[in-house]
Structures are given as C-alpha cells and as structure tokens.
C-alpha cells in the first residue's frame, strides 16, 4: 500500500521570479494583486517510510535551504482555488516507472527508499485584491499568456 503526499517548498524571502512574472502578467492585462510560487513534489510512498522521506527532503539543500525556504506537507493533492500547477511533459519532472520497479527513485541525485513515484510541479498561487483566490478564468488566462507553454508543459487547475 502506498500513500500520496504533496511537499511544498517556497521561498520565505522576496521571490524575484514571482515578482517578474506578476509584473509581466499585469502588463499583459491579467489583473492580480499577488502571485506566489512554490516547488511542489507529489510523492507516492510507503507510509512506513514517510517520516524518513520528509527528513531526506529537508536534508537536500539543493531543493530546500532552511535559511530562505519553508517546507510543508500539504494535506491536499490537487490545486486549490487560485492555484495553477505546471508540469513538464516528457521531461525530468516525473520519476520513471523503471526507477520505481528497481526501487531507485531519486531526487537531486539522492535515493528515496520507499518512494515509488515522484512528480515535480511549479505551483503558482494567484490572489486578487482583498487577498481572495483568483477566479478560474484569471488563472487560465495567466497560464495561457505566460505561465505555461503547452508545447511541452501541462497546466492543471482546480
């Protein structure tokens, strides 16, 4: 039996990439008050190994630096309101089935025992004035105009 967990790594310092994307989206006519970005790892794992896997992720400084990142395990496994998840197609964002069969799923070169699948997304969270989540039409426009290139990326919204 396996369980799926979403591990979110986000900057706690100002995110220049998100600010650049926000400024560009506004210039393209997508009205947003805030745009936040996070790296999201959807991990399918043996529940007995969960604590060890999260500890390994916390130990990987190439994806999580406690001086500038937060790391949290989300209860949800799909985008929430105002969220856009972008994933690369046919790329490195998914572990291979062969790696799973061989028990060799890795992230940033580190073996993750007990993990059968890992998918990486960029999660964009869009807020409108007043702090409420952006509506689905705004999220879709942001994806179409800038945040997702459908030629090689897949956008998932709520």
């Amino acid at each position, binding site marked *: 039996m396996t369980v799926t967990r979403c591990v979110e790594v986000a900057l706690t310092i100002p995110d*220049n*990439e998100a600010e*650049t*994307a926000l400024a*560009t989206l506004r*210039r*393209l006519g997508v009205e947003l008050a805030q745009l936040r970005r996070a790296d999201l790892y959807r991990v399918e794992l043996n529940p007995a190994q969960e604590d060890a896997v999260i500890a390994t992720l916390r130990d990987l400084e190439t994806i999580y630096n406690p001086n500038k990142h937060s790391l949290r395990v989300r209860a949800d496994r799909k985008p929430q309101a105002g969220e856009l998840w972008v994933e*690369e*197609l*046919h*790329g*490195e964002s998914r572990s291979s089935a062969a790696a799973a069969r061989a028990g060799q799923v890795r992230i940033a070169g580190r073996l993750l025992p007990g993990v059968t699948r890992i998918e990486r997304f960029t999660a964009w969270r869009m807020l409108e004035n007043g702090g409420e989540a952006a509506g689905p039409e705004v999220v879709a426009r942001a994806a179409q105009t*800038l*945040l997702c*290139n*459908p*030629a*090689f*990326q897949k956008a998932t919204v709520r």
Partner: protein
Amino acid sequence: MSVSEARRARVGILIFPGTNSEEETLRACQAVGLDTELVHWNADLDAVRSFDAYVLPGGFAYEDRVRAGAIAAHDRLMLAVREGAAAGKLVLGICNGAQVLLESGLAPGLDGAVAVQAGFAKNAPHGKFRSTHVYVKLAIPPNRCAITAGLSPGAVIPAWASHCEGRLAAQLDVLDRISRANHVAFVYCDASGNVTPEAVPNGSALGAAAVTNQRGNVLAIMPHPERDAWTFMHHDTSREQARGNASAMLATSGGIALFESLAKALAR
C-alpha cells in the same frame, strides 16, 4: 546604384537584462561588414523600429524566469521585433534569442500564425546544461529562409551548443507540420555532415538545431555559430595548427558563414 552606394542595412543586437553573448555576436556581424549596434532594453522604441534587421543573442534574459525566453518574449523591445518580422525584416535568434523567438510565437509560425506552437524544453535525457562543440547541417533549400539563402545546399557549420533548454518540443501533430512544411532549417550532424542520433546533444525533436518561420525571414538557432567564428574558437586540429601564427589564429572559422549569409541577404 551599387551596394556600396546604397544605405547599409542597420542591424540591432537586442540586449535584455541577462543577455551575455552580445559582444561575440556584434563582432561576428561587424566582421562581415554589417552596420551593427547594441540596443539595450530601455532604448527608445522608435529608434529600435528604425533597424533593418534584429539579432537576439544568447544569454539568460531575465534570468530565465518562468521559462527560458518567456519574459523577454513579452518585453517592449519585442514590439518592434514583431512589427519588423511582420513587415519582412530579418530576425535571427541565437540560443536564448532562439528561445525568445519560440516563446514569442515568431517561430515556427506555422500557417503564418504568430502564436506559441513549440518551445525549447530541457535537454533530454537528464535535463542538464550542456556545453559541447557541434556541427549543424542546412536541412532546407537555402532560399527557403532568407538568412540561409547565401549558404550552399547542405552546408555544414560548426557551432557550440551551450544550453540547458535546447530540445525542440511540441505536440506530435505540430512536429509533423513543422517537418513537412520545411521549418527545420538546421539539424545536428557530425563533422562530415552525417545526420545521426549521436550528433544530437539534447534530444531535440527532429534532430532540429534551428527552425524558421513560414515566410523564411525569422531564424531561431540554438547552438552558437558566433562562438566558432574564428579559428581560435574552433575545436578541431586547425586551431592547433595555427598556434604561433597570429593571422591564422585570427582567421575566420566556419561559424562566420551564417553571418556572411545574413549580410548577403541584407545587401539585396
């Protein structure tokens, strides 16, 4: 009126924050006699519009934020480039410049559309940055693209591939149309011009190193010909043979051919 009497075509080399190959590109353009200027992102837009052709050099425009080329594709400078391309001006994008052209929809421009139809995705199979010497072969009739019209059929040009996101990627039906409509201007090959899977450094679909638009006035090429434009940059024995001979070392190398072809196109 002779070419020398005519007004020389002016080429603008566009610099975005993070561009880093403008000097080599400038020198290659100047070496073939082009009247070339560096144009910064905050330049007056009407001044940018006054150029006859544009070259988008390599680098990491806007730090590759969101995706390589994605933010620069929407930079105000690109208004002039879009207008110019629509008016038939020549536009050459190299490496990051090529990524900008695909993200802006100026290439491949299937059916004449300006829309994002393809992209340069992370290299396969490992998604890692590669810097390696390559050869590219002209895969279209030379006059299919104005910028390649001065090359010989099947011309082989040396260059340096230096990128993390250089794999041409698109939906399968789009790739089929790109191939059938002769949008793949250059493919990777070996030094003898043999097109082999081993010659492709990044898993690029169709073995593509460069794509052109339907009209043939826009060319997006991933490897850098300007980094193999002089013998001292070259990778084979010619560089070793030139050691101790300054004039031989500073002689132009194969990569200059693309800039010579650009200059010929602009002299017409």
